[in-house]
């Protein structure tokens, strides 16, 4: 609510000059355009009143940690949604990357007997490469054969799961959960960045922030980024204006795949155990976060800040529901309703503009 008040003085003269009808509309638009902030604010205040520890320092740091962990995959999916597509292979790619990152960092390696612990950068390069490969396949079939993204990524999702299962059977591992990763790797991801009071902020918060900045630059400051928006809002128009549509689509999915790879890299160290189901259904929360954050399925619309807000809102609500001790059976219903309502409000915003 404070946010609204802060906005008023700057617009107040403007409002005064309007006819009552216009004024009403202007205020309505203002509320509408900031609906997500208003919902976050109401949710935070409401949960805080019911459970004051919600706004304690450890709790806030916890929410930031969770948001950071889920941001890269949301940014990846976000790019695909801007193309008016989607990516349901995201979760499995995270899983595969997590398996590979863990597999290169095991102290006693059952997957590759005798393999020493690899330097951390090798693991990063490996997950980037794997993510990029899957992304390339996704983008290639979408661009070349004009297949619907849902179909292509459904197929790659299955293929990647198969690869995960085979990977986990390598050596003498026989499908067992991978754990026992090197301290260097775990520390690289979860080590202390700095301390606020007694609460440790882990390093991956910084990595996630860097990733967000890089993606922002790519989306906003490069030709590729501008092409992405152009293809997303109108593929034919983009084509006619000389944009290489095929290349753009493939690149968007490669970028997305690399972001999933990094999510997997961070997740393996964060959770310290990886099995064949790691990453399962991650894409559903990521897609929900993007859409809540205003990255529209209409295509061509969406911002990095939107993805951040979407992930943050989801985490605030998930954590908040736990703080409120909501019955876990209802949790799924509430989650579903929030996504539905949030997206409806957001869509209204764009429908009004059109």
């Amino acid at each position, binding site marked *: 609510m404070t946010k609204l008040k802060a906005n008023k003085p700057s617009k107040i003269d403007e409002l005064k000059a309007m006819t009552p009808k216009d004024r009403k509309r202007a205020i309505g638009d203002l509320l509408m355009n900031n609906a997500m902030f208003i919902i976050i604010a109401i949710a935070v205040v409401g*949960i805080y009143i019911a459970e004051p*520890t919600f706004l304690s320092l450890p709790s806030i740091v916890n929410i930031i940690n969770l948001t950071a962990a889920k941001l890269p995959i949301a940014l990846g999916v976000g790019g695909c949604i801007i193309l008016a597509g989607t990516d349901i292979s995201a979760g499995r790619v995270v899983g595969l990357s997590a398996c590979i990152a863990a597999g290169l960092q095991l102290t006693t390696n059952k997957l590759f007997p005798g393999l020493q612990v690899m330097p951390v950068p090798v693991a990063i390069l490996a997950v980037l490469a794997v993510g990029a490969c899957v992304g390339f396949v996704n983008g290639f079939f979408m661009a070349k054969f004009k297949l619907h993204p849902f179909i292509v990524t459904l197929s790659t999702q299955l293929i990647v799961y198969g690869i995960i299962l085979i990977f986990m059977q390598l050596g003498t591992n026989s499908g067992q*959960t991978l754990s026992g990763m090197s301290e260097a790797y775990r520390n690289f991801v979860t080590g202390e960045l700095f301390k606020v009071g007694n609460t440790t902020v882990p390093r991956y918060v910084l990595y996630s922030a860097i990733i967000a900045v890089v993606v922002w630059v790519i989306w906003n400051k490069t030709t590729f980024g501008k092409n992405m928006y152009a293809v997303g809002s109108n593929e034919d128009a983009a084509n006619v204006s000389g944009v290489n549509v095929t290349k753009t689509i493939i690149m968007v999915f490669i970028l997305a795949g690399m972001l999933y790879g990094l999510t997997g890299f961070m997740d393996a160290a964060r959770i*310290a155990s990886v099995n064949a189901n790691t990453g399962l259904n991650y894409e559903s929360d990521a897609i929900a976060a993007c859409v809540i954050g205003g990255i529209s399925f209409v295509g061509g619309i969406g911002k990095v800040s939107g993805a951040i807000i979407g992930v943050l809102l989801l985490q605030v609500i998930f954590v908040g529901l*736990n*703080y409120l*001790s909501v019955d876990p059976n209802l949790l799924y219903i509430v989650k579903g309703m929030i996504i539905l*309502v949030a997206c409806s409000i957001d869509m209204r915003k764009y429908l009004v503009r059109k």
Partner: protein
Amino acid sequence: MKKVIALALALVMAFGLVACGSTAPAETTAAAAEGDAVVETTVVAAEAAGVDGEVSIFWYTFGDTYLSSVRSAMNAAWDAAGIKYHDYDANNSQTTQTEQIQTAITKGTAVLVVNIVDASSDDATQAIVDMAEQAGIPLVFFNRSVSEEIVSAYDKAAYVGTDYTQAGHMQGEMIGNYVLENYDALDLNGDGQISYVMFKGQEGNMEADARTQYGVEDADKVLTEAGKPALVFYDDANPSKYLLDANGAWSAEQGQNLMQTLLSKYSEDNGNMVELVIANNDDMGLGAISALQNAGYNKEGGKYIPVFGVDATDAAKEAIAAGSMTGTIKQDAEGMANAVVAISQNLATGADKFDTIDAANVVGTWRVNIPYSAYTGE
């Protein structure tokens, strides 16, 4: 106008959220706000209940039938003890569970009760123990097994489980005796051997491994001691000697699918019908029964293939009463729930960890085993 409606909707939702939470008793204590301080203040403040603040229980999934019965029993036990509690559903993801625990600790919880998702990962266990130890919160693992070294390293931690090999041994013995008594009736093709199929719930799970091994080994022991040949796996070409739920979910759906596929190739007409079904848990056994019933078996008055499970879920008990299932091994859901509640209370009040627990079931200083029992109907 539409804008107003949309906004109103948002407001309703936001308030709804808050309303959801306020159904819990509003007397959130000041002590709870201070996290670590909870336990100390408790002992003086509320001696009757023994635990101040909320106990958090982390379930690996709400979708598990047996654990649902433990949950009902445990919730009843918390209520009876006058302890506030909150259940979390990890939905079979260690990531979700670790995050939920992290969140519960920041919220301030009196005791962490954890049904760990990745039972085969010491690192996941270690991470949870570290979080609890750092916050000084008592920690009780239950049902899904954790390593002794990790649990014993934290003095406020304990594990309530079962001797995981016991279920397999009991199931094997039960099967052996049953087959011995009904040998000729079971031998459908009259080749003098009983062919069986084994359904394994999950790869890399100690419980599943032990049940898969002992369920057959112990039955064979009973049979060979009585001078009968050992059980024969129905498919020579399968060296693993079990069919696996590849999703690792011990699910009825997989039991059904696998059995149905099997029945399409193996039947009495071909003279190679499977004569005995052994499953790692009741859900898979019940799935197999539904496939058998579709093929005309295990219905009233029809031919009968014996099916054995583990867990003694309500559905399995009904199936046994209805005659479609043969036997199961009962995990004592109530016994486990009560032990978890008692240990949580002891840890929170600073009493001896295993006070009020039957000493015969206590193993060392770190775990309690809840005994199994055979169930073939009441």
